[in-house]
């Protein structure tokens, strides 16, 4: 299992567009991925509407947990995506 945290820098936070793209990215891997926002229960990162409804805003820190055969690659790809888009 791999874990990392990321603090959102985008002004609007995880809104519809990046959420959709993130889900698309994660679905391309076989690993199970969860996202946890501080103070809330972790959710399955491929659940688009739940992800949007987390209401992750600029300055919030989220924790990703990635578990599965391709966790290395998945973690790297997710981290890159977050840095570039959020």
């Amino acid at each position, binding site marked *: 299992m791999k874990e990392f945290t990321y603090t959102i*820098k*985008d002004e*609007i936070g995880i*809104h*519809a*567009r990046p959420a*959709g793209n993130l*889900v*698309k990215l994660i679905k391309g891997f076989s690993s199970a991925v969860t996202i946890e926002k501080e103070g809330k229960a972790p959710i*399955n990162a*491929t*659940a*688009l*509407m*739940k992800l*949007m*409804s987390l*209401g992750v*805003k600029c300055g919030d820190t989220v924790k990703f947990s990635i578990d599965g055969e391709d966790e290395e690659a998945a973690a790297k790809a997710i981290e890159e995506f977050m*840095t570039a888009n959020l």
Partner: protein
Amino acid sequence: MTVFQGKGVYGAVAIGKASIFSRGGADVRRESIDDPAKELERVEAAKALAVEQLEAIHDKALKEVGEANAEIFEIHIMMLDDEDYNDSIRNIIETQKVNAEYAVAVTSDNFAEMFASMDDAYMQARSADVKDISNRLIACMSEGGSGSSESGEKMIVCADDLAPSETVSLDKDKVLAFVTAFGSSNSHTAILARNMNIPAVIGAGEEFLKSISDGDMLIVDGHTGEIYVDPDEDTVKRYTEKQEADAKKKQLLQELKGKENITLDGTKINVYANIGGVASIGSVLANDAGGIGLFRSEFLYLESEDYPTEEQQFTAYRKVLESMAGKKVIIRTLDIGADKQIDYFKLDKEDNPALGFRAIRICLTRPEIFRTQLRALYRASAFGNLGIMFPMITSVSEVKKCLAMCEEVKKELQSDGIKYSEDTEIGIMIETPAAAVISDKLAPLVDFFSVGTNDLTQYTLACDRQNAKLESFVDTHHEAVLRLIEMSAKNAHVNGAWIGICGELGADLTLTETFLRMGIDELSVSPPYVLPLREKIRSIDLKQG
């Protein structure tokens, strides 16, 4: 005659008959079923059909309202595929043994409620998206699908609210305007209306819908948000005139959109826009500018409490470059001084800030600030067509120092394995008489010049821009200034560089011909001046006179 007040979201006038929008899909009833598997199949079949429809709408939206606005429909497709949403529908069908329509409707309410209860206006607006996809799904389960108006006459569509997909699905040729009783100016629908150039008023209130019926005469004023039901003769006359005036203005601009900036004798020139923040990109595109000739990077520093990080700057620059999709974007490096104070820079007070410690002088004295900006710029260069421009240049050695810094930054990025574009153009502002006078020495070092006429005028005429008393001494068409520009243009061209003007004089239509005759290659002006300037350029014949 009755008048209703809403919010105008697109400024134009429409006069015509009302057509009340109906969704065709009747209320969903709860029915008990025996065969859940069959209902699940119906859901799957409807989903496939809905996705097909959404893909078609997405294509239509791409053509009519552009990629950024079309994206919502891609998100709709993904929402339809959402695991929780689908699990919920399946669960309700299987455990309650009810029809598919009902299961979708209940799921829709639950998810919409989840978004509506969030304390964030953006997310609240997403509950409309959930309802939109659910209604589509339900409509796809019954025959017919979405019904459209049959008559050939153009109508004013009136609805309680319009979902984005409904707005785009409306046949543009049959819609004069639309009015909704509810809805926010933040909604996708409002944004889409603006992009489709359809007069629209939203939030006209429930009373409005109740008081009209199909075929009623309406006037919709998208400027003021007023709606007249059964208008009297005078009002109709007044609005007909207003409509004609609008149409004339719009036609003129529309005629110029997409046209080249070319003189009667065939000389082409680039017309770009000046902006001071990411928010203005919309108006750059709306006014059909060929690129951004001056992007003032100061806003990043002014809006920040501390030095903006490389990451913050990179994100902003990248956003601009991506939004401009391959069109030229010239970003000017930090241009502040004692007159444009930023607290955390801790600049000393100066008696004469215009001649003081400012712009490139700060950057060369405090290279750590400069390096951060250059790294962010070069990283962003991989995402579009970037030009980097240095302000307040007076000497060859300053330019050489800037270039050396650029080389260092590029080497760093290379060894860090970070991409950047080798095609990034480097230019300098010609805004001091010194730079203009030695432009023959400066031009071989750079790809382009951009003349900052405001400062060039103030330094050449020794007239402080801020001093109102000097106004009668400032001749903006002073021959000294024009000669310096001409000299710079000649020296640029001899050395294979191009030259633009990004100061206020660029928008002075009485000088356009003079600049064209000097061989100026680019004029960069505020977005609203782009089309008037284009009109002027297209009327000039350099072979005459």
